[in-house]
Structure formats: C-alpha cells, structure tokens
C-alpha cells in the first residue's frame, strides 16, 4: 500500500508549482510613503505525484498554502509558475486545453456555504451532469435516476432530493457535496478540509463514507487538513507544508513513526491526542513567521533547535532520507542530510496503546 506511488505512473503530477499574490499597497501609497511592493508567496515550488487509487494527505498550519495548492490543481487559480498534469496531460489554468479537468472535482470545507440555499438537493447534485451536457438549465427530471442513485450511494434517501439544504444537518450537507462531486464520474477528488466543520461523530461518518466510496469507485484523493489524526487515518502518503513549501513527504506510517523534519517532529509532539493522557509534553517554541517576510534559507530555521549556519543561508530541497529504504520519503532539511539530527524517536509505549472497543467486555484496553 505504501509503495503505490513508487512504481505506478502518476495520475496527478505537480511540477514546481508556485502561486504568488501581489499584496502591495496602492501605487500612491508606495510613492508617497516609499513602501516597497509586497509579494506573498503562498505556494512556492511544490512538486508531488499522486498515483491512481491513492490518497495523498496534505497537512500544515493556517497560511501554509495547502488550500492554495488545492485551488491550483482544480484550476481556480492561475499558477505563477509550474504545471499540473493529469494522466500526462497539462491541465492547470495556464494550459491551452483544460478538458481533462472534467475528471476531477472538489469538496469544500464549509457545507453551509458551498451549497446554493435556493436550490433543491436534486438540482444541486444534477448540476455537474447538466454542465457536462452543455445545457445550463435542463430539466432535473432527465437525471432523476442518476441523482437518486448518487444520493443513495452517499447514504441519503431518494426522497431527500426534493428538500433544500437548510433541512439537513452539517454531516448530511457534506454528503450532498460529496454526491454532487461524484455526479460527473470523476476519478480524482480534491478535498479541502472536508470534515473540519463537522462534529467528531459526524466526521467519523463522513470519513468512513469517503473510504468506502474510494474502494467502490476506485477514486484518487488529495486530502487537505490541518488535523494530523484525520490525515493519519485516511491518507496513504502525507506531505507536510510549511510557508508555501513541502518540507516532508512520506508514506503515512513512516511519517508518523519516523518523522524526519524538525517541523514534522514538532507538530507530532504538539498535537493533543487521546493517547497522551497525563503525559508531559515538550513545549513548542515560536510561531509561524510573517509570510510576507519569510526568513532567508530554510524558512523554519528561527524555530528549529538544530539550525546551523547553512540553514540560515541556503534553502534546503526535498531529497530522499539518507540510509532509509527506498520509498521511505523525502525531506527538505540540511540537518537530516548532514545527519546532524538525533534519530527520530518512535514512542513504542504509545504505539501499543489501543482504543477501547465498543460493546465488548473483553475489548477493554489496558491503561498505560
């Protein structure tokens, strides 16, 4: 499962993708107040591949550029440089022929904002079908059977098609979004924080649904989240982003048991987790710097306990982890490359922790 990407030809490929936003003050202010132009490098040189049937997770804190990557892939933003390829064809917003984009769909974070409140659910779900036929306002009846099967596929009832979005709970609305995304038979779904607005028990329902659909329909996912536990649950490989760049990219198990980059280690240390009851945690220092004035060299160096002279000067590139098995991941860190870092700590006592099983007396987990 972990080597999916290693041998198969990639379905989706990002090559040195970048998106810079001009956030300069207006011209008059620049002239009068002598303010310089300001460029926000939201995404700055991101490359990765996603194999067919795989889920790539993308994690990072707010402002790291993960949602911008999603929007670049589906063509909602024009890249400043770089390209996006789908099955070998270039499809980014700069490409001449974006037709291959029909094979991809996006699921958004907020199921309240991403559904038109004045449309019935059947019309919402049928919209991609109508758009695919080139008829903007065809009668929904023509797609009735397809819409009904889509609704049933995501665990809603056929009769729900006649309702409006406000009649549904958050979890059900996200099911409607998923049904709409699946309408055009896409092979690839970009999911931008699809469960972040949901309560945990509803989040579990949606995550289980997404896994089942992936198996049944052979879907490929790019799954973006700030929640490490969710990504751990759903992804085959995980990319960790920091200030517009991927700092580490590795198979999920490998990343969570052998984190390499100091930032990944810090995140894993910081995440509050059920398994950590009463455990002392290492304090995490510092905050994400202003992305308008990123530090020179490695952008993580001001917060990094292993930063050396070279880190302050030279930007590290994503390279395979030294002495690790093939396909064990890539990391952008001078300290890892020079083997200045202590080996990643695998906390075996936490790994043997098991969750309580529901409804079975024997399933009670031992306390640590």
């Amino acid at each position, binding site marked *: 499962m972990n080597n999916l990407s290693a041998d198969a030809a990639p379905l989706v490929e990002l090559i040195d993708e970048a998106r810079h936003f001009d956030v300069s003050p207006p011209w008059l202010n620049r002239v009068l107040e002598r303010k310089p132009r300001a460029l926000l490098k939201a995404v700055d040189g991101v490359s990765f591949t996603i194999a067919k049937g795989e889920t790539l997770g993308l994690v990072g804190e707010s402002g790291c550029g993960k949602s911008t990557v999603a929007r670049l892939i589906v063509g909602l933003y024009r890249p400043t440089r770089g390209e996006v390829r789908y099955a070998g064809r270039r499809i980014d917003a700069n490409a001449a022929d974006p037709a291959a984009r029909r094979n991809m769909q996006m699921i958004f974070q907020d199921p309240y904002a991403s559904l038109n409140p004045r449309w019935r659910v059947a019309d919402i779900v049928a919209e991609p079908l109508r758009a695919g036929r080139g008829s903007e306002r065809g009668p929904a009846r023509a797609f009735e059977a397809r819409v009904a099967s889509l609704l049933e596929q995501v665990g809603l009832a056929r009769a729900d098609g006649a309702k409006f979005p406000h009649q549904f709970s958050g979890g059900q609305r996200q099911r409607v979004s998923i049904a709409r995304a699946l309408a055009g038979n896409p092979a690839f779904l970009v999911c931008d924080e699809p469960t972040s607005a949901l309560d945990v028990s509803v989040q579990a329902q949606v995550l289980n649904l997404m896994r089942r659909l992936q198996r049944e329909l052979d879907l490929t996912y790019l799954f973006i989240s*700030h929640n490490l536990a969710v990504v751990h649950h759903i992804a085959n490989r995980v990319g960790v982003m920091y200030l517009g760049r991927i700092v580490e990219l590795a198979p999920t198990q490998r990343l969570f048991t052998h984190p390499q980059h100091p930032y990944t280690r810090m995140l894993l240390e910081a995440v509050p987790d059920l398994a950590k009851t009463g455990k002392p945690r290492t304090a995490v220092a510092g905050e994400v710097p202003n992305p308008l004035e990123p530090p020179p060299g490695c952008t993580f160096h001001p917060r990094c306990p292993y930063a050396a002279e070279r880190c302050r000067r030279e930007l590290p590139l994503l390279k395979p982890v030294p002495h690790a098995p093939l396909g064990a991941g890539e990391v952008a860190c001078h300290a890892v490359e020079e083997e200045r870092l202590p080996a990643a700590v695998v906390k075996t006592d936490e790994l043997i922790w098991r*969750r309580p099983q529901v409804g079975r007396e024997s399933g009670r987990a031992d306390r640590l």
Partner: protein
Amino acid sequence: MTAGALLAVEGLRVEFPTRQGTLVAVDGVSLTIAPGEVLGVVGESGAGKSLTGAAVIGLIDPPGRIGAGEISLAGRRIDNLPPEALRRIRGREIGAVFQDPLTSLNPLYTIGRQLIETITTHLELTPAAARARALELLSEVGIPAPGRRFNHYPHQFSGGMRQRVVIALALAAKPRLIIADEPTTALDVSIQAQIIALLKRLCRDHGTAVMLITHDMGVIAETADRVAVMYAGRIVEVGPVAEVIHRPQHPYTRGLMGSIPTIVAERETLEQIDGAMPRLTAIPSGCPFHPRCPHAFDRCRRDRPELMAAGATRSACWLVLK
C-alpha cells in the same frame, strides 16, 4: 458531595422561551469543581456545554434564562444575585477565556490600558502598582518584552499572543475559578500546545480551578483531571479523565471515543454513531440518546436515567443496572 467544592452546580436548567414553547438547552446538570481542579466539559455542538459555562458566570443572553437549579461558589449561592453583585464576582472570583481572542479584547485600547482597567476595577491598587501588576501578568503568560508590548493594540498581536493577553486579563484579579470556553479552538496546533501548557502551569502555580469547555477530546485528555461528557443538554458521563477515555461506560461516550481518529492507532474504519444529536425542539423521551443507541431497551424510551456509579465513572444509562 458539595462539601469542600469550589463550584457546585445543582440541577441547572437553562431554557429559551419561544413561540413554539420553551426549549430546554441545559436540563438538570449537576457538577462540582474542587479548588485547583481542571474539569473538562466535552460534547458536540448543541450539547449545552457553552451554556453551562455561561450560566456559571451569569452571561446567558436573554431571552435565555436559568429555569431551575442552584449555582454556588465556595458555598455561597451566586445564581440569584442582583446584576451589580454578580458583576463584582465576575472577573474578581471567576475569570473567563473565550474562543476568539480578537472579540474578547477592545480593538481601540492598548492591551496595557485594558489590563490596568481590569486590575483597578477589582483590586484596590495605586496606578503605579496596577501597572506593575499588569507587566507582571504579561510576563507570566509568556509575552516577550512586556514593557514594549504594553502599549500595543490587539491587532498588533498574533492569535496565540492575543489569547495569552486574554488569559492575563482573566487572571488579573487572581480569581479562584476560570471558565475557559474553547480557548484553543481558533489556534493552530503548535500554538494550541503552548496555550494548553500555559493554562496547566498557571493552575498549578496559583491553585486556580478551571472549567475547560471544548469539543476536542485531545485537549481534554491532556489538560483535565476529570471530564463531564454532555449530550442533548445533559451530562451523560462524568469521571476521572483516564477512566472516561479508556473505560467509558455510557454508549455515547464509547461511540464518541471510537469515532476520534488518533495519530497512533491504525484502523480501517472509525466507530460510527449513526444519526445526529436531536434538535432542541424534539428531544426524545426517556434517555435522549436512545434512538441512536445500539443497546436501547424499553426502559430507555420510558424513563430518564440519572447519573449512577458505573466502574470508576458515573454514567446516566440504564445499562448500568442491567
């Protein structure tokens, strides 16, 4: 049970009169917090956890009102105090930290002015002493260069630093209890960890008790001594945090724990509680969880269970007696 408790809430009921009848958002909640203890209150949206906290500090917005029950702080009843007396308790005896640090601070005043205002409202100090106390608070909550930051406005701080300022404000009058409602929800993980560590350290150093209201079981797991799980306006299970997490008794708590993905356990599917929390207009009879409960039987549909001792926790579930 309430002897020695700092905060005792008994049979609290918060209701909202509407044209369709009275909606009961918090129904018969009883809990205690000992001095220096961190009580986690966890639940999904609409469970009534924030309203429980708001009732304790007397901040329920009309038309909402406390319909029944008593709230006592250190043995003295506070829910029936006149507004002016309650205002003195708020801030002086009970501090509050809310989710969004930007809306808790006045954007037009420097943080120094806001701190001094809070300090002089509750403590009789000279302006110079109040300023010294404000600087001391800022450095205590980990704001670098407090002397320089003193004259900055809230927008000049990052989200994590702002939340530190809010905590400094809550601590200003050395309260014995802090109500923290989703204090880390708006923050990124690394900042969240810093704020949790700060809250824990402050509780330890000052013996301040905390009512930590959050939907994030991970935060509770790391911070709380005891945890109360709320569902549809009621406490369904309460007990020591490790017991509730590792040996939950109530079917809802079990389902909730199973539905949380973690970074250490590898599973194919998550436990799933089908359905959703009932709306306030249609709370089921008997146990409010029975329509979603895999173990529900006749009595669950008929009678409402109260909290009963079950293992090391107390659970409001008829299965305990079975």
